[in-house]
Structures are given as structure tokens and as C-alpha cells.
């Protein structure tokens, strides 16, 4: 794969995860358990959407270097099919109950924060800049979602059971966060991409510390689902995209 094509693929991976998670959090607008949480969750969603825009805009510019024409951020977000999305399987999982939403957010945030901090040292100045900006937001996200895991885990019997079930259910989607493919490793070699393998130990430490404080158990060794990087997704992504993309699909080029 040529350098530009590899970089394009990598930028899609960086942009698609926050984009899809933002859409999931957007589904929560008006459905938060309390007003304060409703605002907080959608704030996080908007932060992630802002980051996704920066990554996808850059991806489109890089694409123009090797394809007939580069797509803009909207075309990339609204006109790709599920098989062309490169997000983590974790972020496309449904909102479920509040513990499910919280667990998904926490497992992602603890990884995302470290990814962005690592990318802030990228030799690609544009990537480094976007990552440095996003890392400040991600630090708050991780603190907030971790706080909720602790409060629900170390809460009532019911909240504890739901929080444990949520962590157990989502655990199998955490493996792919630390499994780079050849495309990514070539960019790591060039100092452009972050080596996600190095994030595994600190992520696990962070997660274990929060789970311990929450009186929850980390799940044992389990089969890890993978596929997001290759566009092989769970059944949930198609339905999410149907809702996210319906306007641009029905009225191509619509603006407001």
C-alpha cells in the first residue's frame, strides 16, 4: 500500500471511532437519567464529533493525493457503507441501560486518552496537533466515565450487578484496541502512528484500578472479537448508519 493510502486508512480509523460513539451518545439526547447527566453525556458526544471532523477532514485531503478526488468530512461520514467504516466494534454497541453506556464509554475513554497522548508525539504535525487538542477533552471523559463506574459498582446491589454485567458483556470488544495490522505498523515505523500495543499495559492498570475501587471484577481471559479495522462489523453498525445517514441518502447534497 502506498504511503498516502495507508495514511488515509489510518485517519479513517482515528476518525470513525469518535464519530460512531458520538452518534451513539447523540441517541441519548433527551433520554438521560437526569437533566445533568443528559447534558454531560451529550457534551462528551459533541467533543467526540468535533474530533471526528478534524480526522475525517484530514483524511479527505490525504485521499485527494492518490485518488481522483478527495471526499470531504461530510461525504466520508454520510456516504460510506458499513463495510467501509473503520471504527472499533466497541463503540458501535447499543446504548443498552445506563451501566452499558457507561461501561462502553469508560473502556473506550481509558484507551482513547492514551492513544491521543501518544499521537501528540507523531512526526505528522497535523496528527500531533489534533491529538494534543483532543487529549485534554479525553482526560475529562475518562475521569467522568471512571467516576460513574465506581459509583455504580460501589453502589446498590442492583447497580453493581448491572455494572458488572456491562463490563463482562463488552470485554470481548477490548482486544482489538491493542492489535495493530501491517498498515498501522508501517506507519508506526515511520513515527506517524501510535503503537497501540504499548497502550495495553497502562490501559489495563487504569481499568483494574477503577474496577477495584468499584468493587467489580475484571473478566478473565476470553475470546476477543476483531474486525473494525477491516470493516467487518457487528450487526448494530448498519442500523446506526441507517439513522445517521438517512438525510444525506434521501436528499444527496442537502445543506442547512
Amino acid at each position, binding site marked *: 500500500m502506498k504511503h498516502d493510502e495507508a495514511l488515509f486508512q489510518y485517519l479513517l480509523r482515528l476518525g470513525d471511532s469518535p464519530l460512531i460513539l458520538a452518534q451513539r451518545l447523540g441517541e441519548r439526547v433527551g433520554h438521560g*437519567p*437526569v*437533566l*445533568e*447527566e443528559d*447534558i*454531560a453525556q451529550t*457534551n462528551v458526544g459533541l467533543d467526540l464529533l468535533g474530533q471526528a471532523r478534524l480526522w475525517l477532514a484530514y483524511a479527505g485531503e490525504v485521499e485527494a493525493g492518490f485518488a481522483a478526488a478527495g471526499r470531504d468530512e461530510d461525504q466520508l461520514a454520510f456516504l460510506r457503507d458499513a463495510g467501509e467504516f473503520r471504527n472499533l466494534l466497541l463503540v458501535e454497541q447499543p446504548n443498552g441501560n445506563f451501566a452499558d453506556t457507561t461501561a462502553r464509554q469508560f473502556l473506550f475513554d481509558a484507551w482513547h486518552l492514551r492513544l491521543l497522548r501518544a499521537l501528540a508525539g507523531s512526526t505528522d504535525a497535523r496528527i500531533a496537533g489534533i491529538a494534543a487538542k483532543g487529549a485534554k477533552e479525553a482526560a*475529562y471523559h475518562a*475521569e*467522568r466515565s471512571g*467516576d460513574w463506574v465506581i*459509583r455504580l459498582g460501589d453502589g446498590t446491589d442492583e447497580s453493581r450487578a448491572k455494572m458488572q454485567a456491562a463490563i463482562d458483556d463488552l470485554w470481548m470488544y477490548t482486544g482489538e484496541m491493542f492489535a495493530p495490522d501491517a498498515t498501522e505498523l508501517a506507519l508506526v515505523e515511520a513515527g506517524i502512528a501510535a503503537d497501540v500495543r504499548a497502550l495495553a499495559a497502562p490501559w489495563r492498570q487504569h481499568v483494574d484500578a477503577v474496577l477495584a475501587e468499584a468493587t467489580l471484577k475484571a473478566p478473565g481471559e476470553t475470546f476477543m472479537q476483531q474486525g473494525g479495522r477491516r470493516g467487518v462489523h457487528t450487526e448494530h453498525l448498519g442500523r446506526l448508519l441507517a439513522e445517521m445517514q438517512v438525510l444525506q441518502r434521501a436528499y444527496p447534497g442537502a445543506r442547512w
Partner: protein
Amino acid sequence: MKEWPLWEIFIRSQHGLAHRHVGSLHAPDAGMAIKNARDVYTRRNEGVSIWAVRSADIVASAPGDREALFEPANSKVYRHPTFFPMPDEVKHL
């Protein structure tokens, strides 16, 4: 959530010296009260510092005591510094 206590939120703005009361919100504990206040009241760059105080811990004067507390001051106009002749040259007073 019914048992979540109410918190009064005070924000110090970019150029303000003192924290000002901006509103109230519900949160399960002090830590989450600060985080909720961050999300509810500082979304538009309003502040550089947040105080959260449990509403139950605020001691307020009773509306029924209004006469006893505040009316005696009404008839004491001499407490306002309005009886001094001011030279014209002094501005901004």
C-alpha cells in the same frame, strides 16, 4: 435519583474576583456535583473555578423575619453617605 441531594453552584468568572451563585443542580456527591456543574454551567467558557455547596448546608434568613431584620434600616437615612457636599472636580464618585 430521588435521593440525590441538591447543590448550589458558584462560579468565578474569568475576570471576576468572587464566586457568584449561578444556579443549582442534583448530584449524588460532591465530586459529581463539580463535574455536573462543569457540564451544566461552564459550557461556554464562563468560569475558572467552581464551588459546590449542599443546599441543605446553606443557612437562610426566614421570609417571615423580614420586618424585624430589614425594616429598621428603612428609617435610618443618615446611614447613607448622601449629606456631604461634593466638589465638582471630583468625578466617578
